[in-house]
């Protein structure tokens, strides 16, 4: 039963991805006004030559704050998984 459901999801997602692959023109984006604004004004407003860094740290800096938090979550998650635990903390799951 599980393989049937998995097969259906695989086929459905495959068809939708292939349809998308055919219908999106590669190299000719439909609209690019936001990106042209970044390219045109990136240097004056943020002063950085590397526009990607200016987008990462200034225009969409809040994403990068979330980004650093994701990495910090992973570190604290790994830290509490490998911590030194006292013996009796485990709950006997029968």
């Amino acid at each position, binding site marked *: 039963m599980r393989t049937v459901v998995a097969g259906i999801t*695989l086929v459905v997602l495959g068809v939708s991805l292939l349809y998308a*692959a055919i219908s999106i023109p590669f190299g000719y984006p439909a609209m*690019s006004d936001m990106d042209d604004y970044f*390219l045109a004004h990136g240097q004056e407003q943020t002063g950085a030559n590397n526009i990607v860094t*200016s987008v990462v740290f200034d225009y969409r800096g809040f*994403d990068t704050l979330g*980004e650093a938090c994701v990495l910090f979550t992973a570190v604290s998650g790994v830290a509490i998984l490998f911590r030194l635990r006292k013996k009796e903390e485990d709950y006997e799951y029968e």
Partner: protein
Amino acid sequence: MIDNLPFLVVAITILLGLYTLLFRKDLIKMIMGISLIEAGVNLFLIALGYRWESIAPIFTGAPSLAMVMPTVQALTLTSIVIGVATLALLLSMVMIIYRHYHTTDVREVTKLQG
């Protein structure tokens, strides 16, 4: 049609990753499937922002002014680091499961009935 080759590669990578995730029985292979899907999605995001005959959006000594779309690359950077973080957490959980169950086969690991 041949111009859309990158999106075809994306579709194949994501399907391969999903196949490994859904049909493989070993936990480590399932996590490999997840990282394959992540690679596919990152490639998809990058390929969305490409323009023909354009260079990377860096003005230091740039040969031409026709540049690729920068926002997508910022999204991909974030998505890659999220991929690293998820993989680190998933793999350390599998290590813990292996330490207690001494197996990584999904069928034996289901003490919790789903």
